[in-house]
């Protein structure tokens, strides 16, 4: 049985009060909260095993290396990578994507080639490709947006063609919650000989993600969105691709031999990990993965579907006032509700909710072009995670109702 009350007890911050009200944290798409199991892993690392990894023969160094490398194994298993060497530690999804843009893309994208992205990319999976396209004389093509903020697939065969060299797409949209048909699009793109990168920043934390099943070439994720610490993320890359890629950052750890005038590169995954890594946070992410897997990604996904369904129902009371973005079927979306009203700017709404202890995000969610396509500058976004409850959805709806009244006729 999914015991949300028991889960909540693992998250110290959830018992915080904001303006004397219990915190209702609905900003999970921005960053997730941290269970004590992860905090304890960090504390334990610093109190007992802290040392630099890989190069030491002393005991602490070995302990630190074992902890650090076993975290890599955990992340590899979490997304079903064939081997831990296919996991490269990065700071976050953004760095993971930039790594591919600075290495693989430099060799494989040329004049006349096409890079395809969805219309709902986070800036982190859009701006790097703008630069690659501009530098290489390639074309960046944006798939069209359907009415319900999903990808309009009607002309997909005119987009994914033999000219497509890279398909870079978000799995679950952080802006509107849409889950994209990544597996189907990957199959289509690979048939054309393209390489496929999946931005799993939102999907990996909330649903089972399997790189072998998806058959993608690269996949990027951020630890801080999946109960892990800030400052650690991962890039999955198929071994063949990682092997032939040039390194990105250079320096310590990523070299095999160095002379004053030249150097040779270390094996995977170290080739892509220059300098002292973020050891403690990798260990912390390993603990987060353990925590998620103990509960089960299927169970987490089910919980969020139920919560989203409940919320979509509850929001019907507000359907005259609020425009809701994204698919209406909870199965086709993540636990992300993005909404807008002309009557109140999202920021003012956010400030009102905040005084009720409710944390939502307001703004463009780093998806400015998507917002523009939806005809707004900003939206308010409530995003759920494994610890959120129906009572919290009720609190959100109640606060929203009062806010709308307050800003339209109620105030004064």
């Amino acid at each position, binding site marked *: 049985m999914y015991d949300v009350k028991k889960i909540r007890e693992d998250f110290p911050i959830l018992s915080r009060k904001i*303006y*004397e*009200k219990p915190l209702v944290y609905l900003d999970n798409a921005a960053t997730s909260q941290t269970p004590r199991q992860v905090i304890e892993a960090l504390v334990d690392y610093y109190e007992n095993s802290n040392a630099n990894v890989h190069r030491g023969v002393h005991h602490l160094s070995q302990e630190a290396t074992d902890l650090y490398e076993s975290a890599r194994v955990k992340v590899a298993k979490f997304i079903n990578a064939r081997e831990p060497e296919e996991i490269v530690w990065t700071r976050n999804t953004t760095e993971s994507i930039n790594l591919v843009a600075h290495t693989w893309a430099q060799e494989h994208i040329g004049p006349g080639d096409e890079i395809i992205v969805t219309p709902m990319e986070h800036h982190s999976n859009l701006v790097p490709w703008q630069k690659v396209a501009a530098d290489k004389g390639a074309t960046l093509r944006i798939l069209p947006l359907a009415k319900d903020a999903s990808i309009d697939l009607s002309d997909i065969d005119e987009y994914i063609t033999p000219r497509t060299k890279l398909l870079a797409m978000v799995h679950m949209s952080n802006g509107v919650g849409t889950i994209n048909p990544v597996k189907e699009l990957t199959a289509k793109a690979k048939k054309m000989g393209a390489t496929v990168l999946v931005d799993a920043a939102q999907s990996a934390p909330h649903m089972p993600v399997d790189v072998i099943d998806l058959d993608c070439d690269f996949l990027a994720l951020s630890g801080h969105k999946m109960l892990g610490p800030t400052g650690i993320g991962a890039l999955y890359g198929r071994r063949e691709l990682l092997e032939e890629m040039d390194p990105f950052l250079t320096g310590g750890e990523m070299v095999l031999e160095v002379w004053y005038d030249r150097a040779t590169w270390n094996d995977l995954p170290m080739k892509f990990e220059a300098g002292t890594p973020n050891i403690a946070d990798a260990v912390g992410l390993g603990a987060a993965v353990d925590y998620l897997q103990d509960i089960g990604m299927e169970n987490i996904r089910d919980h969020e579907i139920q919560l989203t369904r409940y919320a979509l129902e509850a929001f019907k009371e507000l359907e005259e006032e609020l425009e809701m973005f994204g698919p209406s079927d909870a199965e086709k979306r993540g636990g992300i509700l993005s909404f807008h009203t002309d009557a*109140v*700017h*999202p*920021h*003012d709404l956010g*400030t*009102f909710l905040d*005084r*009720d202890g409710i944390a939502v995000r*307001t*703004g*463009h969610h780093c998806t*400015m072009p998507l*917002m523009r396509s939806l005809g707004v*500058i*900003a939206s308010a976004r409530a995003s759920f995670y494994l610890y959120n409850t129906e009572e919290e959805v009720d609190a959100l709806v109640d606060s929203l109702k009062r806010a709308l009244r*307050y*800003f339209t006729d109620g*105030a*004064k």
Partner: protein
Amino acid sequence: MAQNDLDELYGNDLIRDHNRNPRNSAKLNSPDLVADAVNPFCGDEAHFQINLDGQGRVSEVGYEGVGCAICRSAGSMLSEVIKGHTLEGVEEISGLFQDMMFGVEPSEEQAALLGDLTSMTGVRAFPIRIKCALLAWSAIEDRISEHQRRQP
């Protein structure tokens, strides 16, 4: 308590009025100065057109703001209070406004210069929103310092 904070901000008549009925909303054709700013974290925008008279004083202003109530009303108030001032004068008011937003109470004389902007003190209870109140000013300030650099 929370409600009081909110009322002091959003319940303020001047702010409500400026938000709903922004002043100087007619766009100027071929203005002497154009100033624009975007808040990268929320996408809010402020756009100004400014005409100067023979003595270098602000004679006409056009303003359009896209964003929250604080951002829009602060821009609208700004568009009023800068009229009749030289660019140096505008910078001075800008400084007074920033000081006020960070807690310095204006003197009576300063309050007169600030005009409706004095109603913005309610934003102080929401520190993260102060940058909404300052967006319009940052547009103007950037443009003025650029303008002055060009005409030494």
